[in-house]
């Protein structure tokens, strides 16, 4: 009888230990198919980089136009949700960073083209509304920052545009500067190398634009570069076949990159631009699925392509592009 008592006490104690361990666990967990995992996936997001951190937000998830904003740590491969953009959810907005602050404006809410413009302070995690973009309300513009001034150019306001506007954060004011000579477009790309912004890609009137320009931040003038299509009698452009829209762009180590986007179909192509020679060379294809509306950015001179969408599915995944390494399908 005594041993029975001891045994049952032990049993009760062990049961209690068992139930305790399961109730104090801090985790709840679940399983999801990797192929169905979308995470923060979206297309046509706005982004900017401050202090080696990439801020990505707004965009379209296939159902809604979004207001949420996230910061992405490329070293740890993790996302943190920050304060939401105070304006309406939108896609096709532009983002840029000037003097340690982020800026997001213009875009499309599904009904209206937008011209509102906001400043993000990463230290306080707050947004402040700034002077509305002074050009027409639009989406699918390109943006870039030179000398801590921001520029918004091209886009679609009901017509395809080639105008260019400068934002001065010190005076909170917009000034129209020189327009592109030709090459109206929406959903184009811009990347910055040195004190110049390069504008390429995009679509207008159902045609992909081949006009390619550089904007000098010192003189605030545009220079036409060689077209990004096989249009010359010379051989340098015989292989040029990458004009398209909705691509991701970034610049690193003095070179510019265009990846993915829509050409005749969704693309994985990657092309590298050398401003010294004004020539493009094709690089190893993007490793992920072909996609449209992905976001490209550069952190610590490393180029990344994130998000984007195929015909139906928004993607969460992120890829770093190393332009000099031999291709390794297993990394």
């Amino acid at each position: 009888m005594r041993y029975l008592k001891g045994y049952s006490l032990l049993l009760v104690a062990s049961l209690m230990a068992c139930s305790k361990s399961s109730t104090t666990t801090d985790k709840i967990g679940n399983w999801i198919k990797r192929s169905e995992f979308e995470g923060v996936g979206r297309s046509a997001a706005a982004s900017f980089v401050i202090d080696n951190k990439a801020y990505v937000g707004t965009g379209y998830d296939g159902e809604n136009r979004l207001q949420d904003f996230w910061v992405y740590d490329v070293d740890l491969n993790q996302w943190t949700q920050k304060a939401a953009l105070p304006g309406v959810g939108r896609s096709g907005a532009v983002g840029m960073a000037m003097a340690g602050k982020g800026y997001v404006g213009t875009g499309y809410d599904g009904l209206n083209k937008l011209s509102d413009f906001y400043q993000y302070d990463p230290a306080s995690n707050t947004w402040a509304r700034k002077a509305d973009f002074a050009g027409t309300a639009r989406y699918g513009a390109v943006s870039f920052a030179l000398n801590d001034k921001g520029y918004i150019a091209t886009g679609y306001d009901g017509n395809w545009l080639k105008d260019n506007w400068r934002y001065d954060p010190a005076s909170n004011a917009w000034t129209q500067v020189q327009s592109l000579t030709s090459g109206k477009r929406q959903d184009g790309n811009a990347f910055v190398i040195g004190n110049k912004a390069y504008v390429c890609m995009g679509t207008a009137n159902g045609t992909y634009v081949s006009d390619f320009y550089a904007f000098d931040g010192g003189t605030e003038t545009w220079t036409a570069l060689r077209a990004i299509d096989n249009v010359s009698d010379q051989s340098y452009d015989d292989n040029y076949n990458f004009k398209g829209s909705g691509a991701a762009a970034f610049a690193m180590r003095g070179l510019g990159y265009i990846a993915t986007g829509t050409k005749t179909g969704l693309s994985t192509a990657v092309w590298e631009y050398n401003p010294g020679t004004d020539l493009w060379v094709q690089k190893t294809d993007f490793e992920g699925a072909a996609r449209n509306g992905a976001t490209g950015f550069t952190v610590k001179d490393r180029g990344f392509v994130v998000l984007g969408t195929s015909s139906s599915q928004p993607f969460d995944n992120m890829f770093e592009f190393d332009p000099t390494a031999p291709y390794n399908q297993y990394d």
Partner: protein
Amino acid sequence: MTKRKLFILAGAAVLLLLLIVARYRKPASAQQDGMVQLTVVPFEIKGGWGYKVMMDNKPYIYQDVIPGVAGNRAFHSKEDAQRVGNLVLEKMMQHKLPAVTLAELTEMQVAGIQ
């Protein structure tokens, strides 16, 4: 007497073994090909709480501030961090965006949110 002691000892040993097995056995829905596990883990930060949403034991979302609202405030309590983390996980399981809105935080009566 010694027989009884031995019996108790043996019983205890068997139970201990069972406990160890129960504790370290993989969950019933063990790793399958092409499946990833999502888990919420609260953590202490800045005199408050945050949460991590782990994907295959690596943080996919690292939330050290209350998501979606202005300011750098941590959650007041571990419970709030856990509840909001669970909401994020549920959204991911339903193929929704993991973003949290001010309206959701208000509805959940997260402390410090008006």
